[in-house]
Structures are given as structure tokens and as C-alpha cells.
């Protein structure tokens, strides 16, 4: 039987060009809001960023100047607590789901984790309030960290699970074949092979909670002064932005813009820094 492959007509060429153009366009549309937000933040906020803003605490109402240094530090502390709690728990849950959870119990955990992912952040704030604040009898950085950790866990768990499932079974078998125990294989082979994917999941979760305000409202609570104690109310950039943006003072509005810009820059540089560190460890051909 003779088969005839039709020649490539001008219509097919045109369609090819059109589809390429459409996909480029969609990328631009998707990226446009990000750039618009960033450009607008720079436009509004960069003028108010100065040494005082980065080194001083807020001034009382009516007094001009002051800064958000304590809030920047507070966000750092709260995120550190959230990551210390959320990352190991999330990765641990992900390992369980991928390596041991191919059964009904695992399905339950998966379902619960997806539901947790959809719980409004303010509700998670209430949970942390009940778990930590009620017991300690006051607001604290710890409570804020717990709230954000709870939000990080489901994202990290599910992405870790997906990334571990992508590691071919043959890689695990190679380790078993060398007499490596199962837990060792999971930690040193499977998890290590999936590292870059797992870190992407962690960074997604981190970036998502870094700007959260609602879960901190009645956990970290905010603070106008320096505080380094984990069991005391602590300032956070997002809370400070929220308070200042709702205020009637122009100076505070300007500071809120500056705070937003600082927050975004901090998140972007944290994510970028982790990426660079991870990339440095890569081998040729890996």
C-alpha cells in the first residue's frame, strides 16, 4: 500500500506560527500581574526606604519617621520557627505517603492533607490561638510560627510525595541490592535523588506563608518595640503593613508600601538564595 504524506502547506505553517505566538502571549499574560505588582511596589515604596526604615522601630502616632526593623526581624524569627517545625514534619509526611502510604491509611492522610490545604488561613490562626496562646496566656512568636507551620505542612507533604514517586523504583532496588536498609535507602537515595523537587515544594510553601497576615493576627499579634523572646508578642511585616495601611495617616501609608516592597524582596531573595545553594552542589550531567 502506498501512503501519501501530505506536503506542509502554508496553512500548517501559519498555524504553527499562530500557536507559538499564542503560547508566548499566555506566558506574558501570566507574568504581567507579577511584574505589575512589583513595579507598582517599587514606584510607591522605594522612596520611603531609608536607613531609618530598616534600623528603627515604629514611632508613636503623629511623630514622623521611624521604621520597621523590629517587624523585619520578627518576620524572620516567625518564619524560622515555622520552617523548623513545618519542613521536617511536611517532608516526613511526604516520605510516609510515598514510601509506606500506598494503602487506605495513606489515602486518609492524603485526603486530610488536601482538606487542610484548603482551610482558610484565619481558621488556622484560631487553631494556633487555641493550641499555644490559650495555654501560654499571651501572644507569641511561637504561636505565629506554629500557625504558619500548620499551613506549610500539607503543601510540603504532597509535593514531597509527588517528587519521591517520580524516583524510579530501579534506583531503590539498586540500593536494596547493595544491602542498604530501607530507611537508609529512603533518606540517602530516594530523598536525595528527589532533592531539587522537594526543595521547590518547600520554597513554594515558604513563599506562600511568608506574607500571611490572618494567621498572625491573634497569634504573633504584633509589637511596636523590639522583642527577641519567643514567648512574647512579636512584630511581623505583614501585620505592620496591615495596621499601617488601615490607618488614616499618609506617613504610615507610605511606610506600608515600603514594608510591602521589603517583604517581597526578602521572599524573592530567600527563594533565590536557596536555589543558588542547591545548584552549586550539582554535578555535571546530574
Amino acid at each position, binding site marked *: 500500500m502506498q501512503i501519501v504524506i501530505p506536503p506542509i502547506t502554508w496553512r500548517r505553517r501559519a498555524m504553527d506560527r499562530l500557536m507559538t505566538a499564542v503560547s508566548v502571549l499566555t506566558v506574558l499574560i501570566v507574568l504581567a500581574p507579577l511584574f505589575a505588582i512589583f513595579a507598582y511596589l517599587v514606584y510607591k515604596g522605594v522612596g520611603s526606604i531609608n536607613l531609618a526604615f530598616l534600623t528603627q522601630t515604629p514611632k508613636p502616632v503623629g511623630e514622623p519617621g521611624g521604621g520597621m526593623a523590629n517587624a523585619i526581624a520578627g518576620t524572620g524569627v516567625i518564619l524560622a520557627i515555622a520552617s523548623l517545625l513545618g519542613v521536617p514534619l511536611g517532608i516526613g509526611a511526604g516520605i510516609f505517603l510515598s514510601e509506606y502510604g*500506598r494503602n487506605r491509611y495513606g489515602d486518609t492522610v492524603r485526603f486530610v492533607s488536601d482538606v487542610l490545604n484548603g482551610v482558610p488561613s484565619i481558621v488556622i490562626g484560631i487553631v494556633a490561638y487555641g493550641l499555644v496562646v490559650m495555654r501560654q496566656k499571651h501572644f507569641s512568636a511561637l504561636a505565629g510560627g506554629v500557625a504558619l507551620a500548620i499551613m506549610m505542612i500539607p503543601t510540603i507533604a504532597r509535593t514531597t510525595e509527588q517528587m519521591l514517586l517520580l524516583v524510579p523504583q530501579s*534506583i531503590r*532496588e539498586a540500593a536494596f*541490592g547493595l*544491602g*542498604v536498609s530501607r530507611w537508609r535507602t529512603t533518606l540517602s537515595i530516594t530523598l*536525595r535523588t528527589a532533592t531539587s523537587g522537594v526543595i521547590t515544594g518547600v520554597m513554594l510553601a515558604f513563599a506562600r506563608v511568608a506574607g500571611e497576615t490572618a494567621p498572625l493576627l491573634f497569634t504573633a499579634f504584633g509589637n511596636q518595640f523590639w522583642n527577641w523572646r519567643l514567648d512574647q508578642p512579636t512584630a511581623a511585616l505583614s501585620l505592620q503593613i496591615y495596621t499601617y495601611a488601615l490607618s488614616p495617616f499618609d506617613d504610615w501609608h507610605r511606610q506600608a508600601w515600603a514594608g510591602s516592597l521589603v517583604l517581597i524582596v526578602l521572599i524573592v531573595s530567600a527563594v533565590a538564595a536557596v536555589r543558588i545553594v542547591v545548584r552549586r552542589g550539582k*554535578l*555535571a*550531567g546530574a
Partner: protein
Amino acid sequence: MGVGITVEHLNAFYGKTQALFDINITVQANHATALIGPSGCGKSTFIRCLNRMHETIPEARVEGKVRIGEFNVYNGTSATQLRRRVGMVFQKANPFPTMSIYDNVAAGLKLNGFRNRKQLDEIVQKSLHSSALWDEVKDSLHKKSGASLSGGQQQRLCIARALAVQPEVLLMDEPCSALDPISTGKIEELIFQLKEQYTIVIVTHNMQQAARVAEFTGFFLLGKMIEFDKTEKVFTNPSDKRTEDYVTGRFG
């Protein structure tokens, strides 16, 4: 030094499906034994029963007795303990992709807690020499990932990795099925040398390969061991009609 293997009344299952039926075989120490047979006849399942890899598959189970050297494989030996003495090379090369060439070879020792840097260096070099890969990778041991090598090199890397833990038995599950004739030739040459120190069991689809490398050959069909004898006998004067049909190419 290699050790012998004795298998008695081995039955293997995947869930309710029986894959191996009453296998009995004695593998001689420091010899190569080839297992041949058509696809799906149970050769790979059998070889995976020898180092307890079969049971890593969900719902798979094994009945019967296997002795490897002093180990009673299914009674009183842990799977990890056993696998440190029984190395395995898989059908598809499976180097650890995130590890350097050096770390791939050292993996078995390092992950089992061996830390002596100097000895590791020696063992890695020796293993890569044994698998005829040293000259090709000696300049990029720490720089390149195991996955960056060519297919044939990857398979030889996997052999080096298996040798580094100094096993007594080496199981090879169609180690050359994805390789070109030159790489295949290198690996066959290697098997010839390795026999002096290890007991080798090799599954192969290539009957010439079995004839070239192995002193003993077993013929599997539909989960049963039809014939097990000296390679020469199996290929020139088999006692079973089905073996004859297979080795002369009349089926399979």
C-alpha cells in the same frame, strides 16, 4: 571467594499467581551459571529470590529453601545482611543519578557506615579496574554524575558498585540486554575474570552469551526448571525435547 548456592523446592508467587514451581538447583562456587528461557518464564523472578529482592514487590512471596554459603536465606538471615554478600546487577543500568562516579561506587560501603577514606579510595579504584571502567572515568571521578556516562559505561559502573561491597555471589539479570556488541564483549570478558573470585549467576536472552561465559546452564520454561546441566551438554545434547527445541531456535 565465591560460595555455592543450593535451592530446594522453591516456589514463588505474585499475589495469587504462581511464577516459579518447585525449583531445585545447585550452583557451584566460583563458576558462572547461565539461566536461559523465553520471556516471562521466571528466570528473573528466580534470580531475585536468591537475594530476596522478590519480596520487595507488594504481595510477592516465596516458599522453599535457599542456602548461599553459610546463610539460610529465608530462615534466620536478614535481607540486608544477605544482600551485602550477594551483589546484583540489573537489566537496566541504574546508577544513582545525583551521585558522582566515585560516590556511586562507594555507595554500598558508605551507606552501610564504612568511613575509612583511604581504604574507600583504594576500593573504588580497584572496583573500577575490575569492571574495566577506570581508564575511561579516572579524570572525572568526583566531577561527573553517574548518569552522565554512556549506557555501557553506566552498566559497568553498576558492576563496579556491586563489586565494591566485596560480595561472594554476583547475580546478573540480563546485564547486556541494552548494550551494543562492544560493551557486551567487555562485560563478558569481565564475567570471565570475575569467576575466579565470585560465584556468578547470569540471566540472559542471548544463548551465544550463555555458551560463551557459563560452565553451567539452566533452562526455564513457564516457571519450571526444565533442564540444568553443563553448558556444553545443554547446547549440544540436551536430555529434554523442549530444551532442544529452544536452543535450536524452533520456538521462543
